[in-house]
C-alpha cells in the first residue's frame, strides 16, 4: 500500500508526459528532472524522519518501512540522474540517432561544476547504501554496516547543498529542506546527548567507571 503511494510521483510524471490529467509544461525535460530531484530529497528526509518518529511515539513498527523509504530515495535520485544524463544531456537522443555521444561534456560537468560534483557524490553514497541494504549484507558487514549507513547524513547534507547551489536567487525552497534536515539532525544530537547523560547517570549510580 505504502509502496504504491511512494510510486505516485513517478506515475504522475509518466501520465503528464502523455497529457493524461496534466502536462509537464513548456520545458518537460527540466520538469521531469526537477520532480525526480525534489522527490529524491523528500524521500531522504522522510526516511530520516522514521527514527525520531519511532522514538518519540514509541511506534516501533515504523522501523519496518525505513528500508523501503530509503530505497525509494535512491530510486528517485537515480531517476533524477538518469533524466539529466539521458534527456538533458541527450545520451538517449544520440543513442537513438546512432550518433557518437560526447562523454567529455558529462565528465566536465561532474568534475567542474561544483553543484553537480556534490550531487554526484551524494548519488554515489546512495548507491553504496542501496547495494548494502539487504539483510544478508547487513549481517555480513556487521558493525561496519551502521558506520557505512551513517553516510546517509552526509548524502542528505550534500543533497540540500546541491539544491541550494543551483538556485539563481530565491532560496526559499532549498531553505525549507535545509530547515527540515537541521531539525532531523538536531534531534539526533539532542537525543544522543540525552542518552549519554542518562546512561552515565545510571552508570555513576551503579558505581561503574564513566567512560566518555
Amino acid at each position: 500500500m505504502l509502496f504504491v503511494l511512494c510510486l505516485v510521483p513517478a506515475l504522475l510524471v509518466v501520465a503528464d508526459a502523455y497529457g493524461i490529467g496534466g502536462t509537464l509544461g513548456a520545458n518537460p525535460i527540466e520538469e521531469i528532472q526537477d520532480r525526480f530531484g525534489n522527490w529524491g530529497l523528500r524521500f531522504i528526509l522522510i526516511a530520516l524522519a522514521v527514527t525520531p518518529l519511532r522514538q518519540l511515539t514509541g511506534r516501533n513498527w515504523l522501523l519496518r518501512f525505513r528500508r523501503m523509504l530509503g530505497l525509494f530515495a535512491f530510486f528517485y535520485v537515480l531517476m533524477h540522474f538518469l533524466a539529466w544524463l539521458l534527456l538533458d544531456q541527450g545520451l538517449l537522443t544520440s543513442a537513438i540517432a546512432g550518433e557518437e555521444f560526447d562523454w567529455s561534456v558529462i565528465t566536465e560537468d561532474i568534475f567542474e561544476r561544483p553543484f553537480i560534483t556534490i550531487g554526484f557524490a551524494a548519488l554515489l553514497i546512495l548507491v553504496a547504501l542501496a547495494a548494502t541494504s539487504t539483510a544478508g549484507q547487513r549481517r555480513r558487514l556487521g558493525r561496519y554496516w551502521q558506520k557505512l549507513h551513517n553516510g546517509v547524513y552526509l548524502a542528505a547534507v550534500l543533497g540540500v547543498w546541491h539544491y541550494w547551489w543551483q538556485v539563481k536567487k530565491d532560496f526559499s525552497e532549498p531553505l525549507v529542506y535545509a530547515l527540515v534536515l537541521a531539525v532531523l539532525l538536531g534531534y539526533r544530537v539532542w537525543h544522543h546527548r540525552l542518552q549519554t547523560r542518562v546512561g552515565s547517570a545510571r552508570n555513576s549510580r551503579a558505581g561503574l567507571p564513566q567512560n566518555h
Partner: protein
Amino acid sequence: MLIRKPADIRSSDITPKEVFLRRRELLQAGLMAGGLALGGPAMAAILPPGRRAKLVDVAAGKFSTDETVNSYTDITTYNNYYEFGTGKSDPFENAQEFEPMPWTVKVAGHCEKTGIFDLEDFIRPYALEERIYRLRCVEAWSMVIPWVGVPLADIVRQYRPLSNAKYVVFETLLDPERMPGQRSRALHWPYVEGLTIAEAVNPLSLLAVGVYGEVLPNQNGAPMRLVVPWKYGFKSIKGIVSMTFSETRPRTTWERAAPHEYGFYANVNPEVDHPRWSQARERRIGSSVGGLQGILGAAKQETLMFNGYGEHVAHLYEGLDLRRNF
C-alpha cells in the same frame, strides 16, 4: 428583496468584471494602434478566453527569423518575472488580476524633452511592427517569439538625448500591492536595466507592446517591455515606467544581485560560461504531451554568439574584452 438605489450600483455590477476588464484591454489595443478598430462592449465578450485583444495595423518588421515560433501557451506560461513570483509558472498564475492601464512613462535625465507621458502618447506616433526574435535566457533555454512593438531608436530620438547621455536606464513599476513578488526580497526593487545609447538605437532594439499580434499579456511585461534579442533575457526589462538618460552606467538589478554571475552587457556568448553552468548550448522550449518521443524532440542546440544577431551588433563591442565584460 433589496432594491438598491442607483448610487449603490457600481459599474462592475452592471458589466461583469471579466467583460469590463476586456473592454479596457480592447481600448488599450485600439489606442496603441493609433485608432480604435474594434469597439463597444459587445466586442469584448467575443474575445476568446485566455487571449488578448488583437492589435491592428501591424506591419511585418525586419530581422524576423523563420524558425518555428513557440506556441502562445509556451510563451505565456513559462516566464521569469520575479515581480509576480520566482517560479516559471508564477507570473502566469499571479499576474492575471493585474490591470496595467492607465499607464504612464516618465522620461528624465540628460535629454531635451522630459516629462510624464501617457503610454498611448509614448507609443502611438509610431507604426507597430511584428518582429519574430529568438529569446535566449541566461538559464540556457530559448524560445522564438513574435513580438509586436516599435523600434526603441525612434523613441529615444524623440526625446533628443544630450551629448552627455551615455546610457538609457529603464525601471519596472514598483507596486508591491499589485505585484505580489515585490513583497519578498528575492531581488532589489524596482527592477533596473540599461543599455548604452549605441545599443538602444541599434535597429534590433524593440519596445514591445504585444505578442502574437495581440496586446501583451501581463506575465510577459504588459503594457510595455524591452526586447534586446542579442542579450540574455533578463536585460529585456518588463513593465517599464521610466526611461532615464544617464551619464553613468546604472547598477542593474541582476548585476547587483550577483556581480560575478551577471554583468551589465549580458551579451549571449557560448564561450563565456555562467560560473555554475555552461552557456554553450540551450534547450528550445516546447511543451509536449507525446510521451517519451515528444520529450526527446526537445534536444539541446548550440548557442550562437550574440544569439545569432552578430552581423547587426558585433561592431558595438569591438575592442571590448567580452570575457571580462560579460
